[in-house]
């Protein structure tokens, strides 16, 4: 599969709030540090606020 075709098939982040935000939080269940949805939702805002300095 060509790269551009593969890119088209990938799931895009939905940057709406709160729907897209909550969906992205649910994706973070793969990280053991983020055990529940409430913690994951709190994490995202802190994460972005922190990485803005990078």
């Amino acid at each position, binding site marked *: 599969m060509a790269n551009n075709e593969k890119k088209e098939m990938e799931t*895009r982040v939905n940057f709406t709030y709160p729907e897209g935000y909550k969906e992205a939080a649910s994706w973070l269940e*793969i990280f053991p540090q983020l055990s529940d949805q409430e913690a994951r939702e709190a994490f995202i805002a802190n994460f*972005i606020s922190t990485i*803005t300095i990078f």
Partner: protein
Amino acid sequence: MKDAKALFQERKELFDNAIALKHNKRVPIVSNYWTWKILDAGCTLSEAICDWDVMTRVVLEHQEKYCFDGLVDCGGRNNNKLTRAMGYERHLLNDEAESITVLDNLPITAEDYPIYRKSSQEFWWKCWLGRMNPDMTKEQFLEGVSEFFKFLEFGDRVKAELLEKYGALAAFPMPYMAPMELLFNQARGIKGLSLDMRRHPEELMDILDAIFETEVLPAVTAAAEGDYTNYITAMETIFLAHSIMNTKQFARFYWPHFLKITQIMFEKGQKIYTFSEAYIDRFSDFLQDIPEGMMILHPEQDDIFELRKKIPHICIAGGMPASYLGYKSEEECVDYARKLVSEMGDGYIFSQDKMGTFRADARPENVKAVNDFVRSYEL
């Protein structure tokens, strides 16, 4: 040679005494070298900044070679691995020129401020990340989060190795900046914030209060309860945005939040390290509010001998000019170091004036010479 544990105990006492303005047997030395140490280790910027194993080696070799008592930077600057994973850039590395260019591509507008008051989550998600890469994929987002955890692991690991192998202390675990700094460095930039102070002062004040209540206050309150035995201080604050402000603006938009941060920490007995870019001298009246013996102030461009007269109640770090370390002889550097430690004495931490960034900021033989001298100079 003392073992690492004995060195740590000795250094901890030196730093504690310096901050408390008590008599020390010698002046402690803290490294303010940042990307300079990458070049000094024989690496290119992109080799080290993009690889945490290489960066660990750079930091440990820096300590091995120059024998500092503590370090301000432990290799965590310019994390472009994370930003690239998420599909955007904040700065460009140029290995040929040995330079880093920070991009002025911050996405927030003054019109976004009310969104923060409504929801900080919406603000960061929609207005910041959503604009940095609107086409971000799920894979990129998760890779960015994964890189973030790797970055935190690296920070913990390298600080632990500095302590266990060399008995050297990191200056602080985390920075907690005044809300104005967050807008200045990470959201609006120099031009945007300069305009906001004049055109949207009420809206600006409102978002500063909101950032303080939502993010800064909970974080600092929690940080104040921590145990920072293995560090020089409990936290870092940085003066950067003050460089575009007059004293009236500083009094309104900056100082109240900054002072509250320090008060929360000081009430719990926690000490603070503060680096100040540009000049801080013109705000020295505000610094009279800081209690005696609780803070380190590390100015970049001020004359620290003059600053000492204005803020004798605050430990001062820095003062060794890059213009000496990078361009003068070992003898001239040692002579200047002698002037610093003999005149500043107690309540002083020997360090470089600016954040060591470029190769020309210091010659390795000069760094070694001044560190050897300061380590052997009895107060």
